[in-house]
């Protein structure tokens, strides 16, 4: 085998190993290569996953096809293994037209399909029925945000709308830092802000990402279908602590969520520092009951 053919094998390795790597990533259950998107718990965003897989399949086919052709031409037309004269061809008009039109059609169809997916996720804000009680009429109101996340160097500050269901009023419930709670199976709207520099609020499990811009408010929406703890990740360089902005997204049943909000409200003015409980704010800790007189005592 000539040296030239050995080189062409090197180029064959690219589509072979590349495809293999992707397949392992997608389907392996364990091991260092078992890396793929986390579970999607946002039913409003399943289209995103489907779109990704569709595009990946398309480009996978093109990748294998063109890389394979690259290998094949190198193998077949290697001067050292091939006595034929080179074909004196300057091009082929019709071929050019076909291989311009066909990819164009595929890409345009893809582009149009993804507009709809995108509009559902980012443009069509959830609406509530207006005075007439009918959704889809002209007096619909945008659903107001029920929680607010303020990104600041290097933490997430959370607030929930209080009894009046409106943010930015004095009855807002101050949330625990870096921990956002949400009830399942409800379409939730949130407001994102930044206190100092740009941050970006990313919950991989919800396929939700939006930058937080100081001086403006961003509206996002999602539904969470599965209880559990998920990660919140900052995805806009915000300084040296960018990597530390770890947050936890806790999805609970609506009843648990209400109980959580109640507990937060109580914590605003009831907190025991008795030194016995290791963490006055641990989820398992019961807040102390209100007493008529306080003790502020210390051992001399």
């Amino acid at each position, binding site marked *: 085998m000539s040296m030239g053919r050995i080189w062409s094998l090197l180029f064959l390795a690219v589509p072979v190993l590349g495809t293999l790597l992707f397949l392992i990533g997608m389907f392996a259950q364990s091991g260092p290569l078992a890396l793929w998107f986390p579970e999607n718990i946002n039913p409003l965003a399943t289209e995103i996953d489907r779109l990704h897989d569709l595009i990946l399949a398309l480009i996978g086919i093109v990748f294998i096809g063109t890389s394979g052709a690259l290998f094949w031409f190198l193998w077949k037309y290697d001067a050292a293994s091939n006595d034929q004269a080179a074909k004196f061809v300057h091009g082929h008009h019709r071929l050019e037209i076909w291989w311009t039109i066909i990819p164009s059609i595929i890409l345009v169809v893809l582009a149009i399909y993804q507009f709809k997916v995108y509009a559902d996720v980012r443009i069509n804000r959830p609406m509530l029925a207006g005075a007439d009680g009918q959704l889809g009429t002209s007096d619909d109101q945008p659903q107001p945000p029920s929680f607010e996340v303020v990104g600041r160097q290097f933490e997430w500050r959370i607030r929930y709308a209080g009894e009046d269901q409106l943010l930015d009023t*004095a009855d807002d419930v101050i949330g625990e830092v*870096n921990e956002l709670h949400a009830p399942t199976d409800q379409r939730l709207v949130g407001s994102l802000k930044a206190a100092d520099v740009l941050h970006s609020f990313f919950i991989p499990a919800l396929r939700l990402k939006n930058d937080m811009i100081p001086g403006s408010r961003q509206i996002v929406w999602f539904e969470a279908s599965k209880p559990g703890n998920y990660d919140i990740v900052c995805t806009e360089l915000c300084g040296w602590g960018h990597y530390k902005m770890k947050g936890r997204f806790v999805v609970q049943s609506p009843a648990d969520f209400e109980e959580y909000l109640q507990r937060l409200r109580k914590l605003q003015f*009831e907190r025991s*520092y008795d030194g016995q409980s290791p*963490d006055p704010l641990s989820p398992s800790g019961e807040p102390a009951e209100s*007493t*008529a007189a306080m003790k502020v005592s210390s051992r001399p």
Partner: protein
Amino acid sequence: MLCGLMVLAGLSLPGCEAPVATYQPNLVQAKVLSEKNSIDMEPAVRETRQALEDLFGTPDDPKWPAVLAGEEHLADLVSLERLKRAAGPVRSDEQDQHFGLYREHCVHCHGTTGNGAGPTAIFLNPYPRDFRMGMFKFKSTPFGRKPTRVDLARILREGVMGTSMPSFRLLKDEDIEALIDYVIYLSMRGELERKLLAEGANLDIAAGEHLYDPRQKESAPDEFAAQVDAIDEMSLSVAESWEKAQDVTLTVAGPPADYPLYTRDFNGTPEQRERLAASLASGRKVFHGNVANCATCHGSTGLGDGQKNDYDVWAKDWLQPLALDPKNAEQIEPFLKLGALKPRNIVPRNLRSGMYRGGGQPIDIYLRIVLGIDGTTMPAAALKPDNPLGLTQEEVWDVVNYVISLPYEHISNATAGVPPFAREKP
């Protein structure tokens, strides 16, 4: 390929020899003592360093002083096992237990020695805490006392809002416990160092009076024993101050039952709102009155502009003994070179911003008023019955209500009803 391997080897050679992390001596304190007493502190610094290494070990290999391990009531102040988890380089063992926690999470702001002067410190506002004075701002113990473990745990879990201290609530409980141990360890080490340096300033080491000279273990065992005893005394007194704090019981469950509370009542029944209005009026009066004197520092409109020229105790610690002028670059320069951070004015909180570093819950504001803030000029309020001229509990809660209402108060050009911190562009 061979060339490649050689280059790789060459590149990794510097890596093979990881520099050993060491504690930095408190040279700022040494210089203050040196100038104040007109002596050469170098021998004292040397001996202090030796004593501390023998007692407390190194950043990679911490030790717990034997005298403290021997006392039963001090034994569980700090656990050597937890110290070892927090100390040393970042690594994990087979059980996925994390080691080197301090270096992973804390060192770049608080510094290896806990002196609040890590590589990032100079860029932060406010500066990270210097543990070595044993003083902490936001806690539940009275003014001048050490914080409890629970207080430290709270700071670690919540962070300090409005500063660069982040929240570590997502760390495992055992990791947080280990870090608390390490903070106490660094703080005690730092305090002991200050005591040793102060003692060393009184000795004439050149003439033979030693602070801690291990060479005398063989040659003059009695003298050495005396030195060790003196140092043990100092260690004990520092440890006792921590131990006492753990015993403080501060049960604050909330305002008196059915007392008006701003966040609950501002939108409540007309009766609730009326009582709240009365509470706010009372709070405003106390705020501007001359028992609490809040407006003197926080300003007549609560913007924190009452006075802005003071410095915190960590800065005054090295400025005041020598009456240095913080604005005089020439006077400050030698201390900055030794590791001090450029002094910054400590500014009273702008109460209209809605940002409270010790926490924004009503209970937190209550504690700041009642306990004061160590290291700053925020004093503990005078309270009845201990002080007949002081405030009643109800008055304190009135002030709390008033303070919480300030961000929502309509002042000229402010967006009504929305704290500036949370405002969006229209």
